[in-house]
């Protein structure tokens, strides 16, 4: 996982790795939260370009980060979601709260 913080836009982007299962999610959630707490971004982007697999633990990961972003009164966007991951996201209600873009 990589991250970029754009100071001028107050935008934090994290680029997730290939497989988001419970193993990966347990590892990365604290790391992501430490970036959010450090930068307090106004916009938080999770980039799924490299994610090839996600199960329901990925939904838990999104909800958990959203709860933190909400405390900062900031905006969260999930981008570059492929069709298989979109099907998992659609079974949950997260897209009511988080902007999800496939592009």
């Amino acid at each position, binding site marked *: 996982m990589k991250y970029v913080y754009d100071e001028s836009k107050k935008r934090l982007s994290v680029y997730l790795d290939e497989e988001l299962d419970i193993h990966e999610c347990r590892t990365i959630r604290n790391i992501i939260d430490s970036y959010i707490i450090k930068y307090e971004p106004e916009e938080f982007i999770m980039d799924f370009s490299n994610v090839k697999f996600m199960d329901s*633990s990925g939904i838990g990961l999104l909800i958990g980060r959203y709860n933190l972003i909400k405390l900062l009164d900031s905006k969260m966007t999930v981008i570059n979601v492929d069709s298989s991951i979109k099907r998992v996201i659609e079974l949950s209600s997260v897209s009511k709260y988080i902007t999800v873009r496939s592009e």
Partner: protein
Amino acid sequence: MKKSLSIEVNSNICNISVVRVAVSTFISDIPGITLEDITDVKTSISEAVSNCIEHAYLDENGIIKVECTVEEDSVMLKIIDSGIGIEDIELAITPAYTSKPEEEHAGLGFTIMENFMDSVEVESDVGKGTRISMFKKIVNKKIV
């Protein structure tokens, strides 16, 4: 021709991806199977094995048995554990219900299995374990 795969892993979270890869490789030569079918099976097995680790064995050591049978145009999966069992199956399979909200669970494991497979059956004995049976028919879209 019928073929089958049987794997036993211990309840280490590293083994979830091992089972996913093994099962998706095993089913990949079914005539007419699509990438979407494989992802459906892969996601469902991931959910079932994750449940064994987190809920049946509560992150302690235990054995998870996975059986996959391919017969002509169908995939049958059985995921068997000897963990604590499920007291209220109906509640457990309710969408968005989770017994561990503090763990950031979406409570969508069974919802995903039920949506991505054609049938899901849950049998459980409290204190003895749980057996999940899932079935998916593979429709060969190629016209011969």
